[in-house]
């Protein structure tokens, strides 16, 4: 089990926090290209994108998925995660429209409670209640403070034991 990255988006659809973990080798292995008969660009080429583009792509994806899910399953329906051959994306949204997203490998189970906990015990305590942090976080100002980062680091470490084993 390993975690790849973690994002927070605010209600203005802006990415206010990003964290990436060292990518496990399994994900980086060469993708077999022989299956692609229609001349598609192999998936490896996508790695040219930077972190900012990644965040935009992820937001676009969840934004559309969220809509689709609501149209199909009614106003109160939410999507929880989706899985591709390479990774699994976990999604959690608060009533204040903060969106918490985590990318992990495909074997990981439901992470909704984990994301909820990151919000309730780390984000609320260390970011929202920090008197020096602004109320809104344009460009992520005030989110990545030491307490929050440290808390997140150790919380994730407690769930995903070190990959070096």
């Amino acid at each position, binding site marked *: 089990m390993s975690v790849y990255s973690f994002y927070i988006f605010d*209600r*203005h*659809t802006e990415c206010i926090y990003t964290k990436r973990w060292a990518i496990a080798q399994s994900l980086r292995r060469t993708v077999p290209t022989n299956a692609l008969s229609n001349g598609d660009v192999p998936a490896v080429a996508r790695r040219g994108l930077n972190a900012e583009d990644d965040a*935009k792509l992820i*937001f*676009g994806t969840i*934004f559309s998925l969220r809509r689709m899910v609501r149209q199909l399953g009614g106003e*109160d329906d939410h999507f929880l995660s989706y899985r591709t051959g390479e990774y699994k994306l976990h999604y959690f949204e*608060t*009533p*204040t*429209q903060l969106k918490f997203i985590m990318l992990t490998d495909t074997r990981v189970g439901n992470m909704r409670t984990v994301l909820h906990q990151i*919000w*309730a*015990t780390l*984000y*609320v305590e260390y970011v*929202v*209640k920090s008197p020096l942090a602004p*109320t809104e976080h344009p460009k992520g100002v005030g989110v990545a403070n030491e307490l929050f980062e440290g808390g997140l680091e150790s919380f994730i470490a407690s769930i995903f034991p070190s990959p070096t084993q």
Partner: protein
Amino acid sequence: MASSKVSRVGEEVWKSRIDKINAEVVTLTYGTIVAQLCRDLIVPNTASKTDYTAVNAELDRMGYNMGLRLIEDFLAKSNTGQCTNFRETAEIISKVGFKVFMNITPTVTNWSQDAKSFHLVFEENPLADFVELPDDGRAQEELWYSNILCGVIRGALEMVQMQAEAHFVSDVLRGNDTTEMRVTLVRFIEDEMPPDDE
């Protein structure tokens, strides 16, 4: 959610998850803030004539900034999800919101026909204990002593996609029979769209 269930949630959260503070500390701190504002905000070109409209506005602004953050803490602690309608919102504000933060449950009454505004009647108000308004003939008419609460509600609702307006309509400090606040839903705020990415 049924009304009794809402009260139970409020009770539960207040008992188990809230750090308590001595009520007098709150009352006295708040009193000091209001008193200081009354000293600081003076009608231009007068020596010491308090501009009570400015004091009300400032209290509202302070409350608004508190509400923007408080809602996050509130949601994290109470675990209430999205409300289905404004009536439910009113119940939650009264029975969970005020309960967990101030240990009071103002009564929700006086719904307007279109169910977009209601009154909160405060039987008790910890902010206003020991308070007498200044005896200058104007404070009784102009100052809304607990106006910070209006701002809190406005700020908190804004973060959950409801633009609302709140103001006091009566206050026992002014000699009225009850302390009442009117909360009006202006509109639901639409989801923001990501900027077009060319």
